[in-house]
């Protein structure tokens, strides 16, 4: 099974990024093979719909689980349609989060954040 984690860097020691659509990297971990794939997040460079682009990548990579901090309504709709379970990060490293996931310690993320949360306060307000 593939587990995706939104990450600040392209390695397992990097901190998890609490943003989903605007996280620089999506890390895919294969629980059987114990292997990592580090992908650049296609949402990062999107002018609009970053969450949708990132969610599409998670679907395309056939992940069954996503670990992240904040999820907007559009990204959630895509992940829900694909039946992908989402868990809440504690803001640790990617490998720590994966260990916590395997131990069943992570809580499901069912709260939807405001759109554009990942853009930060200033850019969200400016138009």
């Amino acid at each position, binding site marked *: 099974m593939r587990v995706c984690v939104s990450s600040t860097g392209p390695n397992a020691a990097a901190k998890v990024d609490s943003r989903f659509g605007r996280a620089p990297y999506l890390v895919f971990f294969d629980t059987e093979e114990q292997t990592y794939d580090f992908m650049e997040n296609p*949402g990062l460079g*999107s*002018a*609009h*719909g*970053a969450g*949708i*682009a990132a*969610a*599409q990548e998670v*679907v395309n990579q056939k992940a069954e689980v996503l670990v992240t901090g904040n999820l907007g309504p*559009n990204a959630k*709709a*895509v*992940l829900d*349609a*694909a*039946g992908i379970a989402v868990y809440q990060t504690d803001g640790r490293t990617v490998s720590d989060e994966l260990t916590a996931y395997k131990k069943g310690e992570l809580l499901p993320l069912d709260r939807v954040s405001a759109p554009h949360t990942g853009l930060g306060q200033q850019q969200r307000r400016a*138009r």
Partner: protein
Amino acid sequence: MEVAVLSGKGGTGKTTVATNLARMLGWNYADCDVEEPNGFLFLKPEITLSETVTVKSPQIDGSLCVSCQRCVQSCQFNALAYAGQRIMLFSKLCHGCGACMYSCQTGAIKEVPRPVGHVDIGSSAGLRLVQGVLDIGEPMAGPVISKVKQMLNEGDWLVDCSPGSSCNVVKAIDGADFALLVTEPTPFGLHDLDIAARLAEQMGIPHAVIINRSDSMDGIIHRYCQDNDISVVGSIPFSRKAALLYSQGNMLLDDSEYAAVFERLGSALKEAIKCS
């Protein structure tokens, strides 16, 4: 002729200037500030026609779709996704470009109109009045502004624009013969006046400045205009009386002192347009 009224900074008095000048000069009025049009509150027209504004939106026929996802890949705006064996549409992200329809190999996508706002047409005291209204929650004002602009046929028009210098302003002032920049004598007013002036300059639209809420600080605007060779057609004095009239939805022209101010502004504007 089209005279666009813009400001850079919000709340400097675009609508006050545009509505009062329209009535003073007998020109028609168009409200292109479609996210929050308010000119009709003052001109109080009888609305005789209301037209819905639509954008093209894809409709996907699931029975013809073969899940090739070419449409998802062709979308530059992330308005389409493929999940759970079906194409999902996020219509508010869609720009109506039609790329998805062209990329579809099985003809499963057709474009249908999606309402995003409306345009009201009316008249008041012999003036023709048009306003665009964007539906609440819709992100794209462009199609509504374009529709308003299509309505400006013959005659002289004052075009009330949005604040700022975004696409919405660019769209509203595109094709204008003259731009009237409304500012206030504050550092913010000056800062954003500069942005508005540079926009007009870049678009090749001759322009002049009106100072609203004029007080002892006017010098900062005059200095800027002198340095940049922009004429100041006049100023509107700041007073509690003006604020009161505005807050009650009344025209400043209702007051004889302000009527005289607008009479001077009207002729100075005509003069400025002639000299441009």
